[in-house]
């Protein structure tokens, strides 16, 4: 396979630079989140995140190095690999924070649920790439995609990782809708989902139930489950218009925030940069997502458009759920802020996703 010079000239700088900007915000905020006032530094995490950036860049360029139509062939093997890893994580996984999510690779602890999000997009894009039936897809047409997605969701729920399970489900639904599901069928699906809720409730761990109950009534347990939400809102709110200044967030520095460099990093950022900072950060996400919706419209084929849509849907849902959760309008579920939260698997997966989009973007001019 040769590199076409035209490809290089069509390299998507917009997405590339936006991604780097998010990582830059991430690394500086991780630095602040781990800054030790007395020691005068922030420990190894910011540096490590830069290492993960290297890994992410490799993933990104790997994702755009070949014509995306090959993904059609790679989708099932990739999916199979993810399924295998998720089963593996059950068997030999590393436990942390009360759930079993990681596989230790020596230098790196892989969290397979992150790339698993990509697998859903790949197999769905493959399944829905053919022209839609004239009256759209019926529920009976969804047996195969559902059979592929269900094991992934069940395996992440068992870990337990409610956040990822929700993302998997929501991305699946997004893809199905985008792929052309009849609206009436979608309504049936929603109905079935609602009917399934009590059953799902039964399978939730007590702490997960607690989070949901706490969200519905934050004062239910202000010292326990509600504590994080309250502290996070205090952090965001006390940032006010311009923030407390970089490295000066007291909620963050004095450890009032939970998971401050991972899922709650937005609270750290808000406290220090205020409303203005938040607005700019959200604007960047908005630009990236809107730009990608443009790519969906301009992609030269259905497969490419579905790939772009799926990948950017992942980004969108992460941002929406993460910010809503940290700002106290959604129950606390573990969902990272794309490319900002600390974590190698998440960063590399996200950059791979952007790489896939850039791949489609580069090749839309080539026929």
């Amino acid at each position, binding site marked *: 396979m040769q590199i076409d010079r035209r490809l290089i000239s069509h390299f998507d700088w917009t997405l590339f630079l936006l991604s780097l900007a998010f990582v830059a915000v991430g690394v500086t905020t991780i630095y602040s989140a781990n800054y030790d006032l007395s020691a005068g530094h922030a420990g190894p995490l910011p540096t490590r995140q830069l290492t993960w950036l290297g890994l992410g860049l490799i993933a990104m360029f790997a994702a755009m190095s070949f014509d995306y*139509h090959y993904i059609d062939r790679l989708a099932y093997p990739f999916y199979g690999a993810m399924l295998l890893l998720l089963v593996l994580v059950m068997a030999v996984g590393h436990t942390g924070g009360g759930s079993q999510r990681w596989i230790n690779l020596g230098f790196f602890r892989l969290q397979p649920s992150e790339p698993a999000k990509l697998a859903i997009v790949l197999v769905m894009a493959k399944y829905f790439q053919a022209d*839609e039936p004239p009256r759209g897809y019926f529920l009976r047409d969804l047996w195969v995609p559902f059979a592929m997605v269900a094991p992934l969701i069940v395996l992440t729920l068992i870990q337990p990782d409610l956040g990822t399970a929700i993302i998997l489900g929501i991305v699946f639904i997004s893809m199905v809708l*985008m792929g052309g599901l009849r609206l009436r069928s979608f309504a049936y699906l929603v109905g079935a989902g609602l009917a399934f809720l009590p059953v799902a409730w039964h399978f939730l761990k007590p702490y997960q139930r607690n989070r949901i109950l706490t969200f519905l009534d934050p004062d239910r347990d202000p010292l326990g489950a509600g504590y994080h939400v309250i*502290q996070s809102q205090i952090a*965001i*709110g006390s940032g006010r218009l311009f923030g407390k200044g970089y490295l000066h967030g007291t909620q963050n520095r004095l450890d009032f925030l939970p998971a401050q460099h991972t899922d709650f990093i937005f609270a750290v950022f808000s406290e220090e940069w205020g409303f203005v900072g938040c607005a700019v950060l*959200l604007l960047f996400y908005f630009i990236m997502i809107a730009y990608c919706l443009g790519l969906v419209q*301009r992609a030269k084929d259905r497969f490419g*458009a579905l790939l772009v849509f799926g990948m950017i849907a992942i980004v969108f849902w992460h941002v929406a759920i993460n910010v809503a959760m940290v700002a106290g309008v959604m129950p606390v579920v573990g969902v990272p802020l794309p490319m900002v939260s600390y974590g190698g698997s998440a960063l590399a997966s996200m950059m791979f996703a952007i790489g896939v989009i850039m791949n489609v973007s580069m090749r839309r001019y080539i*026929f």
Partner: protein
Amino acid sequence: MATLTEINKQDGAPELRRRAGLLYALLIIAFFGLVARLTFLQLIQGERYTFLSENNRIRLKRVPGTRGMMFDRQGQLLVDSRPSFDLIFVPEDADDPAKTLRLLAQYLRRDENELLKTFEESKSRAAFDEMVLGRDVDWPAVVAVESHQLDLPGVSLRTRPRRNYADGPMAAHVLGYLGEINQKQLNILKEQGYVVGDEIGQYGLERRWEELLRGQSGGQQVEVDALGRRVRVLHEVTDVPGYTVRLTLDRQMQEAAYEALKGKEGTIVALDVHSGAILTLASTPAFDPNVFARGIKSEEWSALIKDQLRPLSNRATQGQFPPGSTFKIIMAIAALEEGVINPESFIQDPGFFFFGNRSFRDWKKGGHGAVNLHRAIVESCDTYFYQLGPKLGIDRIAKWARAFGLGEKSGIALDDERSGIIPDTEWKRKRYRQPWFPGETVSVAIGQGYVTVTPLQLANMMAAVANGGKLYRPYLVSKVESVDGTTVREYGPELIRTIQLKPETLNRVRSALNDVVSGPHGTGGAAKSQMVEIAGKTGTAQVIEMKSAYLKSEQLSYFNRDHAWFVSYAPVDHPEVAIAVLVEHGGHGGDAAAPMAKKVFEKFIELKKKAAEKQEVQIEGETRAN
């Protein structure tokens, strides 16, 4: 590749293009929602959250000012504050609170279930609020916690001054006690810097002198992290100790009085007749103010309140009793001053007095025979005073009783003092809307009927008799000093009024009071002392009216037995101290109350002699040195 070309649709994906167009709208709505939420949190509620975040990180560690000490008139310590240790636990600072508590129980040899129960019960407290596992823990516990500090995350010791009443219950009703500030007080005193959990004087001098004793709390503004660990001190204010209060009370006389009263319900008040300074104020049953200092348990408190013998009541100022025969002093003075009798003329006492259609009985069956004023006082003849009553009339009796401070609050600096009742026609009309019946005057003449007084009032009355008619306001505090010894305030005698008395009146009454104790038929012979000449008057106040039979007090149920009085002053020639003794349900004043007064007088003389000897030695030493 065939498959690839097949997939390659040149016209792109029209359906997806349409749907993506819709998604722009959804995207805008979603981000608008997020920004709206941030606007609410950061711009609308920003101030509130800023306050909350400050609240989060800044803890105020208050150091209450050490409360002022109290000394007696000789400089002996009555109340101070000693350092004590409270055992504090902040569960949020421990990884595993239950484990920490189990370890702690082991080190302190305490029941772990009890500690865990306290912990469970305190679950509702605010985050990072400390819970008190033990107040004023003993020294071995302090050592154990200090030496195992590393195994006991979240456990700490806090020093705090604990009020210490050197003599326990001895002067409880004067000194009072401290208690946690209640909501009502907090509402009023918030501006003076009181906060929830503060101790405040709730009774006695502790309450009345709260402002001066209290001192000013200092404190530190400390920045803490989420684990409550101190990061740095932002501000510091040093505390100011409270003022020292010097009392007129004499600790040793107080002790003598308290010992004399032990096991009985009653009170002894001793005054300096030339100033109104209170030397002794004992009331029994008493309570131990130290129990309040260590934190009174609710069952202890309810036991105190429900106790039929009312240990919390200060009988000297709050107890209102019929004065009984002690009131005859007022009667005698009134009669002499108003000139209604010839003190030398005798009347016949058959043992009863007929007035209207009623017979008033003398306490002595068969009567005292021929009695004049002197004998009537010495032997406490009721009949003599019965007939005096109608001669004087109630309004003149009341006038003289009030002149000596009866029926009005003395104005002593203790809360809830009672005034007692001195009835007259006006009072009766107001109170019962009835005219005064002359027969009622007969009862009043021997200190029964509507008349009630407090023991403090009678002590003050005796002081006025002893000093020639000067009625002083009784006081307890002579001096307030700052910690370095400079005088802040000083208190001396405050004359309420001078009662104009003829010298003859004073002489006759005094000589009769003298013979009550020292004369052959005196009712107060039990007060006769080898050390000092005492003058006084006994009294036996009926709690219920005797209908017919002469019953001995043993024949009556306890709460119906008579109160025993003895009011007195000494030394006879140059009076210095006046004492009133009341023993509730003690029976005869001469038997029950008089010996108690004697003990306190003797203690006074003994102390005076000692002081004089000391001074002599000093003077001798000085002369020799010269």
